[in-house]
């Protein structure tokens, strides 16, 4: 709460660079990345394949470590924030454990973090409801469709109520209709919980529909080429996508992506 009051960013990147040392020489996955994300922001990262979206998200989650610059999460290093369980991470694949039921999978972080048993039960029930999977708790992952599995993995990331939700192309493998429904559900959830969300996507409409802030990136080296503050209201029905404002933002994103590409040639 005090973060919002003091205006301190939840995620603060200053001149962040990340270079992978590979057999074929160094790969500059990120270079000179500056970004401030405030509490309650919904930030989308969009850009062509290989521009470092995943790498940046992983760096925030302390799964990769920047080789240059300064990256702070809640004023701490990402590693300290990770140890305080500051974020839930949703990977591109649902990655549910096949030997655990859906409820068991959602319970996993709660067990690890030592929540008391009745509290675990309550939270599992709550998040199952939040992602509209009531009644599926006792099923095994393979008994669910891909979209349901992905929702379960979101529930798993929500269960321990971290302030930050990091999602790497969570809906990438789903069809348009399911994607729309999950996008709506995600917005509702965001409105209910007030979480800060970092969201990677390849879809321009998805980025514009969801975000308060759209970060356009380009590759070689991975860097930010544009940051768009969305003027859209927080309350967004699906048909907002037909509004002139929406189309104008989508246009600017597309231009940004195109500019990033021409830089290559």
């Amino acid at each position, binding site marked *: 709460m005090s973060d919002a009051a003091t205006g301190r960013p939840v995620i603060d990147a200053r001149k962040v660079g990340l270079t992978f040392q590979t057999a074929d020489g160094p790969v500059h996955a990120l270079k000179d990345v500056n970004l401030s994300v405030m509490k309650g922001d919904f930030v989308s990262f969009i850009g062509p394949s290989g521009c470092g979206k995943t790498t940046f998200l992983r760096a925030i989650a302390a*799964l990769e470590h920047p080789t240059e610059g300064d990256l702070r999460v809640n004023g701490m290093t990402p590693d300290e924030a990770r140890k305080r369980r500051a974020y839930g*991470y949703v*990977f591109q694949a649902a*990655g549910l*454990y096949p030997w655990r039921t859906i409820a068991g999978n959602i319970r996993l972080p709660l067990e690890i*973090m030592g929540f008391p048993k009745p509290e675990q039960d309550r939270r599992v029930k709550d998040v199952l409801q939040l992602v509209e999977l009531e009644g599926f708790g006792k099923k095994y992952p*393979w008994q669910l469709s891909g979209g349901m599995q992905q929702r379960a993995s979101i529930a798993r990331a929500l269960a321990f109520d971290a302030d930050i939700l990091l999602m790497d192309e969570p809906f990438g493998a789903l069809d348009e209709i399911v994607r729309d429904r999950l996008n709506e559900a995600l917005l509702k959830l965001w409105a209910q919980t007030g979480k800060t969300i970092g969201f990677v996507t390849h879809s321009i409409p998805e980025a514009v529909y969801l975000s308060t802030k759209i970060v356009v990136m380009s590759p070689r080296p991975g860097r930010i080429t544009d940051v768009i503050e969305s003027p859209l209201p927080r309350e967004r029905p699906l048909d907002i996508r037909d509004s002139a404002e929406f189309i104008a933002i989508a246009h600017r994103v597309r231009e940004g992506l195109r500019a990033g590409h021409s830089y290559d040639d």
Partner: protein
Amino acid sequence: MRSILPVLTVVAVIVALWYAAAVAMNATWVRDQAARAGTEVSFQELVPRTLAQDRPVLPAPHQVAKGLWDGWAGQAVTSRRSLVYHAWITLSATLVGFGIGTGLGILLAVGIIHNRAMDQSVMPWAIASQTIPILAIAPMIIVVMNSIGVSGLLPKAIISAYLSFFPVVVGMVTGLRSPDRMQLDLLSTYNASRSQTFWKLRLPASMPYLFASLKVGIAASLVGAIVGELPTGAVAGLGARLLQGSYYGQTIQIWAALFTAAIVAAALVGIVGAVQAVVLKRMGMAR
């Protein structure tokens, strides 16, 4: 039902070939006998005689079946001539050895994945241990253990463990390392400890691998127990039956013991398979 026909066909072909081989291999002895007696044998006379010898070079299937039947059902189970008695002696050493080997194998695997030094030092030794012929090392183990006053079941169990720990180590190391990067990263975002990672991810993920190696391991354990009975001239156990059979040219006894060993092995592997099915089903990993 449809799958039983090919199986029966194969069995029938094997039995037929076996009879043909028995006639061919035992004929020499019949002809020698006839020559000694100064008589000629026709083919019609030859065949029945090749299939009814006391000490044939290759016993016919029905002789082996009778030997098996006598050994299993024709004796009190405590009798020295009962195959049940001998099978039990070998089986008990097998099970103890399998238990030791599995326990040791799992412990080594856990050490290997958690400790870099063990990873680099244990595996080469484990592999080297399996390149030494078991027939060379078995007598040494028996003699050394006897000299410190340990005999009977335990030395055999040690040899059995020596053979069975290896597949368990290899399978468990693979299984404990089977979780992919994403599954490990997920636990890292929860700030899970190493022991939590082990109990909640690595161990359950390794179960299918464990059972696959247990099947290999239990068969290897039985071989180990039988081999352990050979060098000492043991008086009991399937190995001892094999050995005595070859001393006295009791080929039917050898074959009956061999088939008993095969049946026991099949039963053991089958039991492991059944446990596997139940465990994986209860874990939700079998569909």
